[in-house]
């Protein structure tokens, strides 16, 4: 399998050796997962990082649901300063890109974090989590094309780092939002973040999650995510990264065939800590079996447009 070229280019110099990354919130900051050979990963996308440290939500924070799970972690994270001081120097010694997932309540928060991370050795790029509520507007950045475009543009001006923006599926017109973000200068898009869901404990007659609602991830959301990638990839000219319910090689290939340039594996990491590595190897085997020497050679048979 040595000759197979699995590398992907996500723009602005962000080149990955493997198209399979680990998704935000499922790998913390890359240090904790045991039994994982990090060298097999395309990139680590970190937990959502905010300007100041956050304690996160009270428990119960997670619940399993049919073929998926709900989470309401509440962005527990040590804050950007800690990331720069304690984590980045270690990442700088890894032979593996680390993409910091950025979250905030206001455009200024995102801009301040982007400035703080710009030029820090060990940080290969940013992924904007725009599923966060905007305090001023009272709605999520990611549900409004104008808000999402404005945020992307502001961050673009604050950093020279490769900029990936992560779409939320909890919207009516994903394509319009994706276009606004691409036009505002994002280098790539990732799709999708979790869907808002709810589980009720019938015996005790109350929501299982203390936060009442949480983000649904896992195989349950995969068809939705594939559809989202297919719609978005045919509407924008920047690379799209597919995320949502990928458990196996075949799942990842679905996204690549729908038009994704790369994928992220999330919930699967909890079940099989080596999932991203296994899927990478599986993609290589698939290409070899078909006599294709690189990902670029993967013939896309999916329809070009909706």
């Amino acid at each position, binding site marked *: 399998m040595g000759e197979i070229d699995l590398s992907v280019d996500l723009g602005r110099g962000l080149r990955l050796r493997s198209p399979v990354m680990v998704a935000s919130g499922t790998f913390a900051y890359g240090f904790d997962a045991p039994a994982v050979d990090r060298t097999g990963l395309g990139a680590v996308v970190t937990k959502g990082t905010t300007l100041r440290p956050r304690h996160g939500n009270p428990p119960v924070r997670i619940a*399993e649901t049919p073929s998926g799970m709900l989470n309401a972690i509440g962005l527990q994270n040590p804050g950007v300063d800690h990331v720069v001081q304690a984590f980045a120097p270690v990442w700088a010694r890894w032979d593996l890109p680390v993409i910091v997932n950025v979250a905030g309540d206001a455009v200024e928060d995102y801009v301040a974090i982007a400035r703080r991370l710009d030029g820090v050795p060990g940080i290969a790029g940013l992924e904007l989590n725009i599923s966060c509520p905007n305090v001023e507007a009272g709605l999520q950045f990611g549900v409004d094309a104008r808000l999402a475009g404005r945020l992307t543009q502001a961050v673009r001006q604050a950093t020279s780092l490769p900029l990936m923006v992560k779409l939320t599926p909890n919207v009516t017109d994903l394509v319009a939002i994706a276009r606004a973000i691409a036009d505002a200068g994002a280098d790539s898009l990732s799709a999708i973040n979790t869907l808002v869901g709810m589980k009720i404990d019938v015996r005790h007659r109350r929501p299982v999650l203390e936060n009442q609602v949480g983000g649904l991830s896992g195989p349950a959301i995969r068809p939705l995510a594939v559809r989202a990638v297919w719609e978005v990839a045919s509407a924008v000219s920047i690379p799209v990264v597919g995320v949502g319910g990928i458990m196996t090689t075949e799942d990842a290939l679905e996204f690549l065939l729908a038009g994704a340039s790369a994928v992220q594996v999330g919930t699967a990491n909890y079940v099989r800590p080596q999932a991203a590595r296994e899927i990478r190897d599986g993609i290589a085997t698939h290409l070899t079996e078909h006599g294709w020497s690189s990902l670029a050679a993967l013939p896309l048979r999916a329809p070009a447009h909706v």
Partner: protein
Amino acid sequence: MIATLQAARVLERSTPMGGGVELICETPLAADVHPGQFFQVAVESPGALLRRPYSAAWTDPTRGLVGFVFNVVGAGSDWLAARNAGDRIDLLGPLGRGFAIDGGRPAVCVAGGLGIAVFIGLSNALTGRGRSTTILYGARSADQLLPAARFPKTRMQLATDDGSAGHHGRVTALLSNAIVGDADIFACGPTPMLVELVRWAQRADVRLARIQVAHETPMGCGVGTCLGCALPRAGGGYMLTCQDGPCISADLVEWTRVVDAFHG
């Protein structure tokens, strides 16, 4: 100690008490387990996605054995209870912090229901260190009690909800008579039992630092990557049950917030 991913072979399945299943698994990981640590067990059932956390109830490092004792409460435990001798199960572990067992003071273990599992290995480790060990054990009824023969060299006091064995009522009612002098207290059971124990300690002027609890909560990953297993920390914020626990000194926990969270 590095957690490892490994297939273990089921050697034996039995039902040591009413509503309880015991699986004995063969794995070299047995040698690395400290009492109170747990494994994330993969469940290969379409009805379950995530791994399920289970304490190593006991280990036999020389023969490479780990015992799990559990009850069926949902899809994961249902699948696990259907494993037979010769089947393989996929374990990730050992994980988390076990009990601190050094010291010479007498030990009092407080077990509720399936919480007894972890005391098979712990009481062995304690008595093996020459520590005087008492187990206070509560269950729904006599038929749901793990036989006392599993706890050699320990004193055992029972409580049952229906009065069919020992004290008629909760295990926490046994505390006042049993906790003598400067005993160390180890507890594992439903969260309401742990809360009750802490309230008793506060009333009885027993320092919380003398109590270690094994905390159970749903877990996403078991290794510190999902942040799903938060446990309120005394003084603010949260600990992670899978990393800072599951066995944790009771003075580090903010119990009023535990009561809110787990409706204890």
